[in-house]
Every structure is written in structure tokens, then in C-alpha cells.
């Protein structure tokens, strides 16, 4: 919903939240359900209500448990029956500076202050460990904002007696914990409050009247910031940009002004600001964000613009380049198709409001942010949080390279008349094995990100994946695929549950980046072989339709299963007898287990 996209009118949202919620619930979109327990150190009511709006907007239908006021510690350490029965997917600990038990006094010795710091940290650490052990779910913890006043002025930051100093060091201890623990994430309210303006944030009216740890007017920003982490954890991040060129990546019109006259580089202040924007995009690219071009230009002119010596981005930084006179929405859907992505996973960046309006109207779900003028591009896009990071995997860092390799494969494919010959020319090698510790994070990530090649759309947290891997009743497989152009990493996951001589497939997913490579055949062969070795005679597969997974509607039929049943919702059940199984993969060399 437009009113929930950054930049939003926070006070309007607060005022109209009931109506907005009704409208969101009535918009007919399909959402995943998540249970979120809020353990508060201050009032959480409106934070929950705002968080709900943003999550609904992101395609997540939250169910909430809210602790009693300021009972976060008691609830974490000694959860009541209600919280235990709630079985949260996410526990959010809403604490702030107001919850710090004791700050240093001016007479305290360095040793005393150190002991206070460790005691405060220990209290939190104890909660996180207890929660991890009991619930094994995602924990999101606020760091601390700076205090509302500074007894020592600037020295409050540098002197160990200062509250600013104490908060800073406590935050660092939190970060160290986050850096060494899975399923634990920091919600950075320190940055948020600074960006909002600490003076307005630390509103004594909101605190003393209602015990809100921040200005009530800041709650929409607060909830938005928190919602971004949650949507990122559940695979709702965007995957790439579709960028305009003229007056978006550089100043001027390359076709009219000539490539030598466009503004990008150190020569003018206008050139500098475009250069800074290009540099920002280049940094995002390192994070795995895919860069693409959608520009109304002659192709040669667009390329000449990218050759400008002041530009940071070069032709090779982009995966798909559409520089032509087609409508931009058509180019955008073509780019999505070439990347095997859904159009809604792309962010359209164009300085022209008319183009943004057309693209948002023609391509449902695509983001086309109101970026304003060039000096605002970075701020607006950064705050939008389309690519909020919750972990930096090796896969993220390699993603652009992998998509480029895919583009090379497509080029190679064009030179083969026979698709089989093309597949053999790729010299594909796969590693297909039961879940191993090194891949649990990636496997969990895939279960949350895969929407199209996903038979049951069952999502797993990393803790759940670890539990399945350890349970002898489950047959688990991950598949890694590499070829002459590069390593695709873990791209397919299958989870089956054995009951006697039957195997029930809870999950079968594959990354769309390796569609039509026969990887599913190799996975099927490995599954059949390992199932046979376990004494399984029959494998049952399930297809549950969603708005996005039509491509695998007949997947089990293609693998040789026969349909057993179908209900009115289109859910189908399939059966395969292993007795007559014949291997299906002929093009991928599968490495034997060492």
C-alpha cells in the first residue's frame, strides 16, 4: 500500500491505523503467517499496531503475543504458559536506555564500572541464552539509544563515568554477541534515534505520560525499521535494481548532450552528486544486489554514457541492459524474465515521476520509490531498506558473478541447436548429500526465499533445519551445482519424512537460477537411491498451489509419479513406487560421497 512506502507520513499512519489495517486485510493478498512475541521494557501497544501494518504490507500476517508492561526479563527467564503455548517464530525484546539498571556514579572506580557493565550485559546475555534454549527461534534485540542528557557534556562520550560512554560500550558487547550467534539480530535504535533526531526522540512527554521509550510520533519510523528486519528474515527482500540512465545515473541526456557533456565526476558539484550515487549502487552490488538498466536511449548512446571516465559503474556492473524505445514496464518485465525473477522482486529507480507511475500501475508489486531530486537518491533508497541485510553469506557476495555467468550460459545456449548438447557442454558437476553443518544457514535461507520452484512453500528457520538434519526419521538432501562458468552454490533442497516403508516429501525446492539444467533429475535420482537404501518402497509428493508456484504444478508427474488425489483448492498428492525406478539425469556428473 502506497501510504506505507517510505517516505511515509508517520502521523497520518498513527491517526488512520485502524482504517489502514482494514484496507490491508481486505486487499486479497496472500500472506505468510508468523508468530511474534514482543517482550517489552516499556509500552509496546502502538509499536505492535504499527508493526502489524508494515508487516501486512510486506506480505506477512503477524500474530502477536505481548508481555505485560516491563516484564521482558521475567517473561524471557520464566515464560508463562501462554507464551510457551504461543510458540513464537520471532521474539522481539523491546528495551531501551530506560531499562538500564544502573549507570556509573562519578565516584565509581574503573573496576566498579567494569563490573556494572558486565552485570548489565550478563542480564541480557542470560535472557538470550535462555530463549535460544527454550524456543530456538529468532531473537531480535534493540541496542540502546543515547541518553536524553549528558552530565559531562562532550566528555560523557569519552569518560568511563559518562552515560554515553557506558551505553556505547554496552552496545559493543551486544554486537559481539550478535556476531557470534545464529538467529540473533540487533535492531539498531541507536542509529534510528540519531536519524530521527535525538532531541525529538527522547520526548519526556511520551515517556512520563505513557512510558513510550521514544516520541509517539516516532513510532511509525520505529516499527518500519523493525519490520524491515523481519521481512528480510522471511525472504521478502528485493533482489535488484532496474535503473534509468539520463538524470538518474548521470546529469543530462546522453543522446542530446553527447557522452562527453553528461554530468558525472569530480568536475562539478552536480557531477559529484551523481558520482556519489553510482558509488552507492556499486557498494550495494557488492552485497549481492543485481543492477540492471531500463533506459529510453539508443543502445550505443547508453554504452557511451557508461564509458564516461567520471562514472563509477561500468557496463560489466550490470546484468541485463535494456536501452531502447520500448515502454519501461515492458523492459522491466523482460529483465525479470531474463533473470528468472518475479517482477515484484525488482526496484525501479527513475527520476521521472511519470515513468514511475506507469511502471507501478502496470507491474503490480514492483517498487518504484519517490526518490525526489538527485541529492536525495541515496538517503531515500537507503531508508527504504529493500535489501536489508540479516547476514552476509558467501552467496550474497558472489551473486552478481553468478547472474553474469548465467548470461554467458544463455549466450552459449544460442549457439547450440540441441538443448541436450548445450547442457552437456556446460560440464556440470553436482554434490548431492544429506544436510551438513556448513550449509544449514544457506538451506534455511533457500527455504524462505524460494517461491516459484517450491512444491509446498513450507518455511524453516535455521534451528528447524538443524533439528530435521539431526532426526533419523528424515531423509534430507541438498544439491550444489557447478559448471564451466562457475559455482552456483547450494541450489536445491529436499526433505522427506520416513514412516515405515513410505517417504513423505515435506519440501522440494530449487533456486530459479538453475532452471532447465536437469538438476531436479539429479536430485530425484539421489533421492530414489537413498530412499531405496533405507528400505523405502513408495515416495509420496505433495503440491500446494500458491500465487507463485505454478511452474511446478506437474513437477511430480514429470518425475514419474502418479496423481493420487486432488482437492478443491488444487492441492495434489502424488505417488511413486521405487521398484521400477529408472535414473533420469544424463547430463550432470554427481560426485560420490567421500
Amino acid at each position, binding site marked *: 500500500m502506497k501510504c506505507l512506502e517510505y517516505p511515509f507520513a508517520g*502521523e497520518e499512519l498513527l491517526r488512520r491505523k485502524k482504517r489502514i489495517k482494514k484496507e490491508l486485510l481486505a486487499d486479497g493478498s496472500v500472506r505468510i503467517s508468523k508468530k511474534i512475541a514482543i517482550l517489552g521494557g516499556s509500552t509496546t501497544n502502538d509499536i505492535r499496531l504499527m508493526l502489524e501494518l508494515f508487516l501486512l504490507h510486506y506480505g506477512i500476517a503477524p500474530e502477536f503475543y505481548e508481555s505485560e508492561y516491563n516484564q521482558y526479563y521475567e517473561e524471557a527467564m520464566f515464560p508463562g504458559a501462554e507464551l510457551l503455548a504461543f510458540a513464537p517464530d520471532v521474539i522481539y525484546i523491546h528495551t531501551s536506555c530506560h531499562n538500564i539498571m544502573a549507570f556509573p556514579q562519578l565516584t565509581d572506580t574503573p573496576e566498579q564500572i567494569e563490573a556494572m557493565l558486565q552485570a548489565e550485559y550478563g542480564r541480557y546475555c542470560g535472557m538470550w541464552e535462555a530463549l535460544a534454549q527454550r524456543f530456538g527461534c529468532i531473537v531480535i534485540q534493540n541496542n540502546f539509544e543515547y541518553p536524553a542528557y549528558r552530565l559531562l557534556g562532550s566528555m560523557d562520550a569519552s569518560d568511563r563515568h559518562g552515560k554515553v560512554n557506558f551505553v556505547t560500550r554496552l552496545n559493543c558487547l551486544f554486537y559481539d554477541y550478535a556476531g557470534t550467534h545464529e538467529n540473533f539480530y540487533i535492531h539498531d535504535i541507536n542509529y534510528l534515534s540519531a536519524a530521527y533526531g535525538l532531541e525529538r526522540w527522547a520526548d519526556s512527554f511520551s515517556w512520563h505520560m505513557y512510558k513510550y521509550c521514544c516520541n509517539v510520533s516516532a513510532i511509525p519510523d520505529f516499527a518500519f525499521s523493525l519490520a524491515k528486519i523481519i521481512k528480510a528474515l522471511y525472504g521478502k527482500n528485493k533482489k535488484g535494481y532496474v535503473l534509468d540512465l539520463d538524470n538518474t545515473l548521470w546529469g543530462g541526456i546522453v543522446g542530446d548532450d553527447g557522452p562527453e557533456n553528461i554530468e558525472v565526476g569530480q568536475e562539478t558539484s552536480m557531477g559529484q552528486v551523481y558520482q556519489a550515487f553510482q558509488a552507492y549502487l556499486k557498494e550495494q552490488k557488492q552485497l549481492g544486489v543485481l543492477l540492471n538498466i531500463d533506459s529510453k536511449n539508443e543502445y550505443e548512446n547508453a554504452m557511451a554514457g557508461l564509458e564516461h571516465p567520471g562514472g563509477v559503474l561500468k557496463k560489466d556492473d550490470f546484468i541485463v541492459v535494456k536501452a531502447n524505445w520500448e515502454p519501461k514496464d515492458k523492459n522491466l518485465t523482460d529483465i525479470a524474465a531474463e533473470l528468472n525473477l518475479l517482477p515484484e522482486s525488482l526496484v525501479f529507480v527513475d527520476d521521472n515521476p511519470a515513468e514511475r507511475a506507469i511502471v507501478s500501475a502496470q507491474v503490480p508489486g514492483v517498487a518504484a520509490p519517490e526518490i525526489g531530486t538527485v541529492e536525495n537518491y541515496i538517503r531515500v533508497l537507503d531508508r527504504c531498506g529493500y535489501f536489508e541485510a540479516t547476514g552476509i553469506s558467501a552467496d550474497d557476495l558472489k551473486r552478481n558473478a553468478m547472474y553474469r555467468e548465467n548470461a554467458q550460459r544463455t549466450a552459449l545456449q544460442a549457439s547450440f541447436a540441441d538443448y541436450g548438447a548445450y547442457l552437456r557442454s556446460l560440464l556440470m558437476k553436482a554434490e548431492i548429500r544429506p544436510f551438513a553443518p556448513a550449509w544449514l544457514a544457506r538451506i534455511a535461507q533457500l527455504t524462505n526465499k524460494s517461491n516459484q520452484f517450491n512444491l509446498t512453500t513450507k518455511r524453516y528457520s535455521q534451528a528447524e533445519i538443524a533439528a530435521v538434519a539431526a532426526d533419523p526419521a528424515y531423509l534430507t538432501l541438498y544439491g550444489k551445482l557447478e559448471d564451466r562458468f562457475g559455482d552456483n552454490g547450494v541450489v536445491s533442497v529436499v526433505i522427506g519424512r520416513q514412516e515405515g516403508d513410505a517417504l513423505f516429501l515435506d519440501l522440494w525446492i530449487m533456486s530459479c537460477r538453475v532452471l532447465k539444467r536437469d538438476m531436479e533429475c539429479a536430485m530425484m535420482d539421489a533421492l530414489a537411491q537413498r530412499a531405496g537404501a533405507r528400505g523405502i518402497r513408495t515416495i509420496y509428493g505433495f503440491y500446494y498451489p500458491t500465487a507463485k508456484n505454478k511452474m511446478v504444478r506437474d513437477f511430480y508427474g514429470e518425475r514419474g509419479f502418479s496423481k493420487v488425489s486432488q482437492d478443491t483448492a488444487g492441492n495434489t498428492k502424488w505417488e511413486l513406487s521405487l521398484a521400477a525406478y529408472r535414473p533420469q539425469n544424463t547430463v550432470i556428473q554427481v560426485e560420490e560421497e567421500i
Partner: protein
Amino acid sequence: MTREEVFAGVNEVFRDIFDDEEITVGETTTADDIEDWDSLEHINLIVAIEKKFGMKFTMGEATGMKNVGAMVDIILERV
């Protein structure tokens, strides 16, 4: 701004906050008259009215207002 205009604006905010087009507040309306008007919604009312009229209540005023009429008195002093 007349008292009637302020009332009209206040009424609009009440309707949004409680998502109820039937609400009509008067001089003597209090929290007892509106079912969902609890202390948590009170702060949303305060914030929305401040925004609507471009003014601020002091903490003393926000805690001391007896009814909507008293709220309108304060708004009229400020705008």
C-alpha cells in the same frame, strides 16, 4: 478560527482514531462516552490533534483535561 471550526476539526480526528464515522463529540464528551477511548488511545488523540492544529499541549493540560470542551478551550488559546 471559531469554536465550531475547532470542534469540526477535533471531530474529524476522533472519527479517524476510532475509525467510526458515527462519532460526534460535544462540549461534555468524555472518555466514558466512547468505548475505545482508553489511555493508550488518548496519546494518539493528543498527537493527532496537535498535528491537526499545529500546536502542543503541555503535560499538565494533557493529563488535566476534563472533557472535549476543555480540550477545545486550550486549542483556541493556541491557534
